[in-house]
């Protein structure tokens, strides 16, 4: 049997005390502790510390952070909606890029309808967004107006 390293034994002894199955058996650990006073003292003190810590109680917290969090949530929600709002435009960009790559294939005449594809993409995107890109917003006012 190989001689056990003191550190490994102490670590395993504490793990077993915590309910974790280490690589060393309880018999191996106890045999080592019986013959090594330094390890016996160290494990004894570490177990006492564990018991001392286990006997402590958690402080009851009564603070309420909801008001502070709530005040900043609209910004957070806006950030979420902004990131979502970009998705159709990203898709449109990817489609237009794909169209451009296909268009660049040499010696290929894809016909007049193919040239209308980008227009259809844009119409499709704005239909999806339910926005008229040519609508003039008459409610906008300059600052101080």
């Amino acid at each position: 049997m190989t001689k056990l390293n003191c550190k490994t034994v102490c670590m395993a002894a504490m793990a077993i005390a915590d309910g974790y199955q280490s690589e060393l058996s309880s018999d191996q650990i106890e045999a080592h502790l019986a013959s090594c006073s330094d390890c016996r003292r160290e494990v004894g003190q570490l177990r006492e510390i564990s018991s001392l810590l286990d006997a402590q109680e958690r402080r009851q917290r009564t603070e309420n952070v909801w008001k502070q969090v709530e005040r900043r949530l609209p910004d957070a929600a806006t950030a979420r909606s902004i990131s979502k709002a970009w998705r159709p435009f990203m898709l449109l960009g990817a489609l237009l890029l794909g169209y451009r790559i296909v268009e660049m294939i040499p010696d290929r005449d894809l016909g007049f309808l193919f040239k209308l594809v980008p227009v259809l993409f844009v119409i499709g995107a704005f239909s999806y967004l339910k926005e008229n890109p040519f609508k003039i917003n008459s409610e906008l006012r300059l600052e101080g107006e």
Partner: protein
Amino acid sequence: MDDQAAIERCRAGDKEAFRHVVEHYQAEAIGHAIAILGNRDDAMDAVQEAFIDSFQALDRIDLTRRFYPWFYVILRNRCYKLAAGRKKREMNISDETEIVAPTSSIRPEDTMLLEQVMLELPIEDRELITLKHLDGLSYEELAERLEVPQGTIMSRLYYARKKLREKLVRHSFKGFSEG
């Protein structure tokens, strides 16, 4: 309202549902943040930021899993970022850990000393000891919470307790039995 229902409503933009989540978990979150940061004011900041971060990330949560372990990762990141930013600020007497007056079998001076030396530990060790002993998490739960293997938990706990022991000895701790 359970967490899953509340989160689904939050995703639909219902802020009031998020209030349920915050009020349900804030005490635990504040406790953990104080355990890591050792300071109430920083902990309150970290908890607020973590709740806002989590609200923004609710689309990514797996609803089949519990909320708090997922949230804890966000809170932890916030705490460590805050701790790195403040560097080695001197802790004063008003700083506190999560430890309070324990059972009558423990001497009050031992608890006070324990609280003091806990604040002297590196934050990773303080966090681990708190989760292990105050929350009573198993190695498996600790490994999940801290995103490390169980073997790492075993060695880190061992070294954390050793550091605690050395500090207690340095402060002339009288609680160790002879032998």
